[in-house]
């Protein structure tokens, strides 16, 4: 007999609201006049996210492990991560609404007559808004899910729209389509690994839920080889999503090829979701087996930090540089997982917010630096930007300094708290490596600053387009958050402290 599942709609509401908003967006696509569509879509999307934030705020103190049978958990970490994703997504939507970045008609072959005429007709792919909302819903579900199937479904929901959106860049469309295809193929591959790992863990424990696996691990009930294989395969899927070495190779290409607002959205929000899910899996399901996975993640974290920091120096493209920087940050975030204590979770939550805002800010600067053909990401042409538009270049430097972890920026407090957590957990090695890598990473952040401020501009240098109110708003908000969290981090640290729990 089939009993209908019990769903706690009150606590699922934030996700459901986003899904509803996405469906409304699909409706808008069908029923609203072409000229109005972009505006209506933006307002629908923004309103949806706002309503979801408000709803999340109302239910923030409720806790339950059974809001969708026992597949979704609503605990402190869920609230914090969903909140972070929603707030970051709100700003990302403002960037996305800047239509200059998107192709007029995605189905037109690059360079064809169709493309030119679509451009002339002023068409635009307003579907990005509902697609973004769908991705957001997946991102919100991913760190809340507590069984492997739901995790997999969430992973797919968040990934599919992103694959699509990565190919919508207006400029350099072939590069963009290549990026999308690469992201899709590798992403599908890694999802398969995730599923495969899930199967092994099911074989080991006889359960799909994280709690069931945890119980089996604690009792060491099954074959340890299956457990190890399960952990490793699961890890591959997750590490791919957060962009950790050696599964990072898609990151620079996709970051470069995707439309810049999408890159910003992806870099900020996907990281929150994937790191959140990874933390939940390792903290809840596998914490009893840390002897097996901790050394692996430690090594991966060190390799990722080093690789990100060193590879960033070799590239001359701003978006690729930011991609490598995001790889390095994935390594730093893994320190929070290695720490495996409450401070580690708190630090990770804080780190995600600090990193998310700095990333959005940095990519919003990238959307502004243009020449007549569109965005310019070649760093040689950013030379001397500080002289022409000191404010924009100054903001970019602020975000880089935050990435580098200079005191009085949010990035410093983030690194400090994550190192502290790891030290507290007895992982001094990773702290030492983290500190050394920070020094290497600083070198390339500073190199960019030198380029912007201390090098004389050349004749073919770019101009900075005057930011629209929306982009200015994103830029200002990111800068303010970066400074405020650096100078007075208690506001967020206390919140992160009280929300940093996983219900088991």
């Amino acid at each position, binding site marked *: 007999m089939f009993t209908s599942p019990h769903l706690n709609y009150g606590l699922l509401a934030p996700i459901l609201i986003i899904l509803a908003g996405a469906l409304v967006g699909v409706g808008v696509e069908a029923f609203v006049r072409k000229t109005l569509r972009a505006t209506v879509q933006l307002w629908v999307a923004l309103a949806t996210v706002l309503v979801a934030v408000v709803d999340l705020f109302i239910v923030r103190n409720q806790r339950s492990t059974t809001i969708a049978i026992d597949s979704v958990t609503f605990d402190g970490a869920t609230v914090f991560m969903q909140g972070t994703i929603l707030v970051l997504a709100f700003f990302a939507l403002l960037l996305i609404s800047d239509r200059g970045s998107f192709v007029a008609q995605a189905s037109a072959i690059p360079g064809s007559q169709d493309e030119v005429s679509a451009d002339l007709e002023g068409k635009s792919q307003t579907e990005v808004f509902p697609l973004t909302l769908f991705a957001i819903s997946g991102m919100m579900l991913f760190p809340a899910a507590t069984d492997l199937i739901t995790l997999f479904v969430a992973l797919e929901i968040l990934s599919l729209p992103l694959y699509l959106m990565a190919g919508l860049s207006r400029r350099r469309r072939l590069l963009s389509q290549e990026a999308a295809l690469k992201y899709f193929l590798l992403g599908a591959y890694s999802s398969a690994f995730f599923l495969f790992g899930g199967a092994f863990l099911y074989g080991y424990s006889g359960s799909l839920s994280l709690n069931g696996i945890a119980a089996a691990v604690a009792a060491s009930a099954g074959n340890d080889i299956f457990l190890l294989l399960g952990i490793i395969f699961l890890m591959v899927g997750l590490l791919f999503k957060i962009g950790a070495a050696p599964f990072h190779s898609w990151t620079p290409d996709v970051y470069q090829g995707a439309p810049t607002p999408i890159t910003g959205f992806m870099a900020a929000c996907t990281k929150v979701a994937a790191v959140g899910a990874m933390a939940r899996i390792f903290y809840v399901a596998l914490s009893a087996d840390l002897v097996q996975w901790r050394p692996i993640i430690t090594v991966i974290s060190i390799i990722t930090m080093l690789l990100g920091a060193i590879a960033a120096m070799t590239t001359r493209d701003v978006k690729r540089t930011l991609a490598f920087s995001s790889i390095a940050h994935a390594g730093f975030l893994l320190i929070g997982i290695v720490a495996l204590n409450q401070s580690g979770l708190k630090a990770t939550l804080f780190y995600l917010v600090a990193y998310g805002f700095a990333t959005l800010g940095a990519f919003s600067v990238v959307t502004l630096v243009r020449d007549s053909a569109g965005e310019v990401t070649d760093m040689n042409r950013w030379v001397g930007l500080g002289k022409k538009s000191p404010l924009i270049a100054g903001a970019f430097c602020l975000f880089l300094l935050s990435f580098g972890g200079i005191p009085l920026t949010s990035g410093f407090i983030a690194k400090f708290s994550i190192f502290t957590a790891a030290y507290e957990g007895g992982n001094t090695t990773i702290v030492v490596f983290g500190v050394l890598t920070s020094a290497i990473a600083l070198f390339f952040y*500073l190199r960019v600053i030198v380029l912007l401020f201390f090098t004389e501009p050349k004749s073919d240098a770019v101009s900075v387009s005057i930011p629209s109110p929306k982009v200015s708003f994103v830029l200002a908000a990111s800068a303010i958050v970066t400074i405020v969290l650096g100078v007075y981090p208690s506001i967020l*640290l206390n919140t992160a402290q009280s929300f940093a729990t996983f219900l088991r």
Partner: protein
Amino acid sequence: MSLLTLLELTPLLGAVLLYAVPRQNAKLIKQVAFGLSVVTLVVSGLMAYRFKTNATGMQFVESHSWISNFGIRYAVGIDGMALVLILLTTILTPIVFLAGWNEADNGRWSVRTFYVLMLVLESSMIAVFAATDVFLFYVIFEAMLIPVYLLIGGYGRGERSQAAMKFLLYSLFGGLLMLASLIGIYIISTNQIGGTFDLAKLATLQIDSGTENFLFLGFFIAFAIKAPLWPFHTWLPGAAKSATPATSVLLLGVLDKVGTYGMIRFCITLFPHATKTFTPLIIVLAIISILYGAFLAIGQRDINGLIAFTSISHFGFIVLGIFAMTSQGLSGATLYMVNHGFSTAALFIVAGWMVARRNSSQIEDFGGLQRVTPVMAWCFFIAGMSALALPGISSFVSEFLVLVGTFTRYPVAAIFGTTGIVLAALYVLITVQRSLHGPTTAGNEELKDLNLREKIAIAPVIAILILMGFFPKPILNWINPSSQQTMQAAGYSDPLPKAGK
């Protein structure tokens, strides 16, 4: 709000005020900046007046919770040592403003930016000496690098961006090592007394010796880079050659003292056992610094490079005095920090004028300045005499104290150190002879002597150099109690003189 916080805020207020002045009105900007630095000086004078010489412990204490999650507090307070270093800062800032009135005119950015950065730097230098919360100290220690970096890279000469970059990378690297140690000691405090960064509380921790050694090294290397001690000194000559005189004065005169100050305040206080372990090594490094700096100074052709290398030698003396672990040596080292500040200031300021007039910083381009520009030449001469520690000029007292303090515990080191004095005579006198005496080098006949503004700027420095040479007692009265406290807290007592030998 204590007077100390007010003192920190005054230059910042000035920086904000500068934004109310129109960017084009350079003259008004300079006047406002100078005025505010004088106000700061007055406030610091008031603080020194109210400072109780005989009281033990920190004064003007203030403490507020800052980042409660990690037990981080905004905690400030000063003892005699911090007071004299703060006074050094507040006295030198208006002087360099006046001395380098026009040096911001040809920078990469506006005059206003220059003075904003300078005032921010002054404020952070006061704060760094005042901080009694180790985290607060670290944050300022790192954050103050940014204004210096911009000052060198934006207003300097020659290879300025490379020099600025090298300075920044070295300092940040040291800072990161210190961060690792900072986290380590914080975790130990969490386990023992509840997480705190309060200096006095951290000093009571029981740390096992292996960990203590590592934590000590993290702090020490950061400070040794800052000080700079051989072999961590390589950033200094480049920075000194490229920076403007005003920046150089604040960088070598005050900012680098944060390194030696940190060794006393943090290394010795927090890690007394590790200090004992590493003392022989550090003494050797100090001796090498003294001799290496002196030898390279003799070979220098660039006048700013010369001053940089003499500073490396002098910092060797300061470190020697600190790690001699006698209260005499420590008092001498602290006094040396102040004297070196004024002495370097005099050298850099006068050298800056010479370079600006001659448009070259090569020593060989000068010559016979005595006849052309007598006042400037005399100023340089007196500054040079203070660098070689001529009796009657302030540096002599401190060098003497350092060597006496060292001799009672490490006679061999003291003897090696003394040779540094001989070499100092050599590098100073050679330079004086080449640049001031002899026939006037072609092209120098038309050089102008100091104008009134420059005379007013240099007069107080020279007055201080001579006054403190004859009458160092008031400042020693401030310093002595804090050196004795530091020594006692670290568990050292002065060795008794070996009578009859």
